[in-house]
């Protein structure tokens, strides 16, 4: 009975080779190619988006991001596991099971804690923070809503903004100082503080930027998910990580792109495709496919010149020739 496992020729001979020289040659070839490309084209680099420069260039959006963290409507404030108990980015039950591995209370971590550190340098800020913290939740929410409405009518003057008069309470001072803190360059340091003395984790600064600041910048560079973003290099025409093309393509399927669990579905189906490829030798039909595709005739063109593939099978009836 035919099985692809036995579908190999036994008619061939060995030829002498210098294996070491072969390996040395291929390594030199790659070293030269990579060195020349690096010397001529370098590696593409687009400087990171800094909170400091973003706060100076987009003061209104910056304050809006900070206000959303304070009032609990921001994308991280309501994200869900692994950061908190929100539901905004909760895609499936597995995500819930894993739980809160990297706790982030956006209100405290993004706004109140950095401001309380800055208050050591600015006593008036301490007064505003005390007033805010001692107010009832409904009073805090009223100030935040009023400030949000005011922000939508704010006028930008260079790197600062002015709001129309309103009942903002201490939130006005807090947001104004938050903007100054952002523009000073000290906010990213305040966000990335962890209990350890040495800092290796920039999670909170990236989460602070992950909404409109990074989204808007990435959109201009066509790096968003719907723009096949992850396989682009930000500086065309440099090649990006094109080996992730299949997963990125799955993200372009409208049914998946519009699903609430889009990320889980895209990565999950990409993994299923990969597993099929891994186990191809054991999958009927798929494991015989290369014989019928015929590309092997090109690969072993030279071999088949001396060992023709198509000979009279009937010879087998008369016995096997050695």
């Amino acid at each position, binding site marked *: *009975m035919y099985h*692809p*496992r*036995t*579908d*190999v020729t*036994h008619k*061939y*001979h*060995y*030829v002498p080779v210098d*294996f070491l020289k072969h390996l040395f040659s*291929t*390594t030199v*070839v*790659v*070293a030269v190619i*990579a060195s020349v*490309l*690096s*010397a001529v*084209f*370098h*590696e*593409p680099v*687009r400087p*990171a988006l800094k909170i400091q420069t973003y706060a100076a260039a987009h003061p209104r959006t910056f304050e809006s991001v900070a206000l959303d963290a304070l009032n609990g409507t921001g994308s991280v404030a309501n994200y869900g596991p692994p950061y908190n108990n929100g539901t905004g980015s909760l895609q499936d039950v*597995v*995500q819930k099971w*894993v739980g809160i*591995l*990297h706790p982030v209370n956006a209100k405290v971590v993004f706004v109140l804690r950095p401001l309380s550190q800055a208050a050591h340098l600015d006593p008036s800020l301490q007064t505003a923070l005390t007033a805010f913290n001692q107010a009832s939740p409904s009073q805090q929410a009223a100030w935040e809503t009023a400030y949000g409405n005011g922000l939508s009518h704010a006028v930008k003057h260079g790197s600062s903004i002015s709001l129309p008069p309103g009942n903002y309470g201490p939130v006005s001072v807090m947001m104004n100082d938050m903007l100054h803190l952002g523009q000073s360059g000290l906010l990213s340091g305040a966000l990335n503080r962890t209990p350890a003395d040495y800092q290796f*984790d920039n*999670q909170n600064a990236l*989460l602070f930027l992950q909404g409109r600041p*990074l989204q808007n910048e990435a959109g201009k560079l066509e*790096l968003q*998910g719907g723009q096949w973003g992850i396989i682009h*290099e*930000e500086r065309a025409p440099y090649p990006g*990580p094109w*080996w992730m093309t299949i997963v990125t393509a799955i993200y372009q399927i409208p049914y998946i792109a519009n699903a609430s669990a889009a*990320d*889980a579905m895209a*990565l999950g189906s990409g993994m299923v495709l*990969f597993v099929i490829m891994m*186990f*191809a*030798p054991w999958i009927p039909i798929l494991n015989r496919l*290369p*014989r019928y595709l015929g590309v092997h005739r090109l690969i*072993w063109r030279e071999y088949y010149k001396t*060992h023709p*593939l198509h*000979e*009279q*099978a009937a*010879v087998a009836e008369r016995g*096997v*020739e050695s």
Partner: protein
Amino acid sequence: MSTGKRNWTVSMREKSAELFSLDTWLPTELPEYATGFMYTLGSLTASSFVILLISGIIMAANGPQWWTISALGFFLRGVHFWSVQAFFFFMILHLLRVFFSGAWRGGRERTWLLGTLALLIAIPTAFTGYLVRGDFYSQWNAVQAKDGLNALGLAWFNTLNAGQMYGLHVIVFPFILGGIIAMHIAMIRIKGVVPPYPSDRERAAQLHEEGGRSHVPSAH
């Protein structure tokens, strides 16, 4: 000295003798069909990995921000970047060549499995490298990739934690990937490069020879 009785040590000695033999790692002859450019693609992939290791070790030895502040570091970072492009370019061409060759035939299923596993591990190995470049691409893809990983219950793999990504990129993933590549190459050498498909006559003779045998015989 062997007493003829099999135990773990005897088995390990027998397997190691083949695995670490000169015939396995330094062959002086190859089958006639396994020569030419098509059979250089795997070596070019392995060579790209060697250049990645060399450039990576030098960068790691100088600390995680050296490549952003030194001219030599910036050059090596470029070598590393173009080597990873070469690594995947040659690896995909090699994958296509072995697929169209039906390279799992003749008891070589595990060789194929290890090769595809190498590709699977190579993807996060490269991606964690992109995440420690420290530029806009690192920031953007760290926040983009986290959602899928969180949704799959892989929040432990925190793309926003540059320290964790650095450790995974410079030692954990290369160590696993290097091991898989080494096993893949050893399997190729021990099992041999897959021979071409037989001619109609040879294939018919094989089927005729097998006759009424009910099991699928191994070709090795």
